[in-house]
């Protein structure tokens, strides 16, 4: 501790101011979006514009929503290696999917209007979110660690039941479940897009309004209370925002973690790790937009690569999980060393 105090104080001056970095990220996102829309545009624009536009909008929405939710979640839990997928949203999505396919059959499931499925998914996830913080937050008495651990166990429970139901399922129907169990950006319904962009928009506005309070929360519970920002109240608000964002994003495209498993969705982890490197600050008024832009860049840029370079041979999520695993290890090991 005291020997590092001798390090020169001025050596860490920022090379680029943070606002400039945010603008840079925005330009990069716009470039990715333009590339996604324009590269290989051979069909007439009357077809391309709505077709690619819808996919692009879904990518940006999901990227932004999950990134912002992850930043808020990490501040709430004071932990940089957790992401909200820990709370079992992905597992629940697959559970509901499995249940519907099992009880109705794959053909009947395919005939359900997408709007209805979206509503069912959003509804069930909202219910889970409500359960998590109405019941558990009270039982855990504001103890975030206990809440998160309960979330993990709950996710495990849902996953186990899902696996049980999947054993009962017809092999052909199981294939349907499996193909729908990973986030897809290949077909996006415009009606759903409008619905979810509304929900995500509300979530983003709420998250932005929490930014200054989240800064205080990052000082620790005691300091936050002393400054007039008791954590219990803030945690409730923030959990609501997280549930809204993650549930709408998941209902729109499906789970971002493959099979709803894994210690955390690596996507959120990659985004926040990069955000902390590119825009190193404690201020959420910088971190939130920075993470949102990075999330958009990764999804749009990644999908662009997946479609144009790898010709859709590899699903985007698989690539993200692969890179994410590495980032996860690096973040974990670096924390140990520090």
């Amino acid at each position: 501790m005291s020997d590092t105090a001798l390090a020169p104080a001025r050596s860490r001056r920022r090379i680029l101011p943070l606002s400039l970095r945010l603008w840079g990220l925005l330009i990069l996102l716009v470039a990715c979006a333009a590339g996604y829309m324009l590269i290989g545009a051979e069909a007439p624009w009357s077809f391309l514009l709505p077709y690619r536009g819808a996919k692009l909008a879904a990518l940006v929405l999901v990227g932004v929503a999950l990134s912002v939710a992850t930043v808020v979640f990490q501040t709430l839990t004071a932990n940089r290696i957790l992401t909200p997928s820990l709370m079992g949203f992905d597992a629940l999505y697959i559970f509901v999917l499995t249940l519907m396919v099992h009880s109705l059959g794959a053909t009947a499931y395919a005939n359900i209007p997408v709007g209805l499925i979206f509503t069912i998914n959003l509804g069930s996830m909202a219910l889970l979110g409500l359960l998590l913080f109405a019941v558990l937050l009270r039982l855990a008495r504001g103890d975030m660690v206990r809440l998160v651990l309960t979330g993990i166990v709950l996710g495990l429970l849902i996953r186990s039941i899902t696996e049980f139901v999947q054993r009962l399922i017809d092999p052909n129907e199981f294939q349907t479940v499996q193909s729908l169990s990973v986030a897809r950006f290949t077909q996006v319904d415009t009606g759903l897009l409008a619905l979810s962009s509304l929900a995500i928009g509300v979530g983003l506005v709420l998250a932005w309004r929490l930014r200054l309070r989240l800064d205080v929360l990052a000082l620790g519970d005691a300091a936050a209370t002393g400054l007039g920002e008791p954590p219990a109240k803030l945690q409730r608000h923030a959990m609501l925002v997280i549930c809204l964002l993650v549930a709408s994003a998941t209902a729109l495209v499906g789970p971002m973690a493959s099979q709803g498993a894994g210690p955390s969705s690596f996507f959120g982890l990659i985004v926040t790790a990069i955000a902390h490197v590119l825009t190193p600050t404690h201020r959420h008024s910088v971190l939130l937009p920075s993470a949102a832009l990075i999330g958009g860049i990764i999804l749009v840029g990644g999908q662009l690569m997946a479609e144009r370079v790898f010709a859709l041979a590899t699903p985007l999520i698989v690539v993200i999980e692969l890179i994410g695993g590495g980032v996860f290890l690096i973040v974990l090991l670096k924390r140990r060393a520090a």
Partner: protein
Amino acid sequence: MIRISGLSHSIAGTPILRDIDLTIPRGGITALIGPNGAGKSTLLSLIARLQKIQTGTITVGDLTIGTASDQDLARTLAVMAQSSHVQARLRLSELVSFGRYPWNRGRPGPQDHARVEQALERFGLIPLRDRFLDEISGGQRQRAFAAMAYVQDTPYLLLDEPLNNLDIAAARDLMSLVRDMADTDGRTVVIVLHDINYATAFADHLVVMKDGAIAAQGRPDQTVSEALLEQVFGTRARVEILQDRPVVLV
């Protein structure tokens, strides 16, 4: 003044505080001392609203803990945080400016910047202002937290064992700064201390606790004695009067 009446608290069935009535006078430094497990820190954390009050009432000035708004309380009562709990990577000057939060809700104006600047100057933190909190020594960090509590501009200031893990130079340095806040700015300071000699040297008023109750209170020279040490702490130590102040020979 801080008025505590009928305050009881138990954790998992074990009583920590038993029906405490206490008035802490306005102005000066009041030190809470007593053996481990006497309930000093619990009492302080209840005043600081870090725990919910189970029975009894606490009023700080004219605000009642539990009913007054969080913002009003934050403008009346500052709590010096324990440095170990900060997870954000903060520069020292950024930490100090958080002390202005109850007044500006995270949107600092020019007078907030001026206030922080003045505090950095006064606490001798100017050369360290751009350092990250994990790059400075424990004593420097405690001084930064004291500066943060200072710019909160509250009439009352609570500190829970701020001298933990500090060497003698850092401890004396911090206590002089606290003393100065009480004398120059008229802050009412309530501090939990382990070392009785620091308490007698810097405090105006001592509150001695044992087994969740007040065992004695009063001016240091009238409170600390060999009899008290034996009765409250259960240890025989000599107490000498040096320069009108009782000193425990350890």
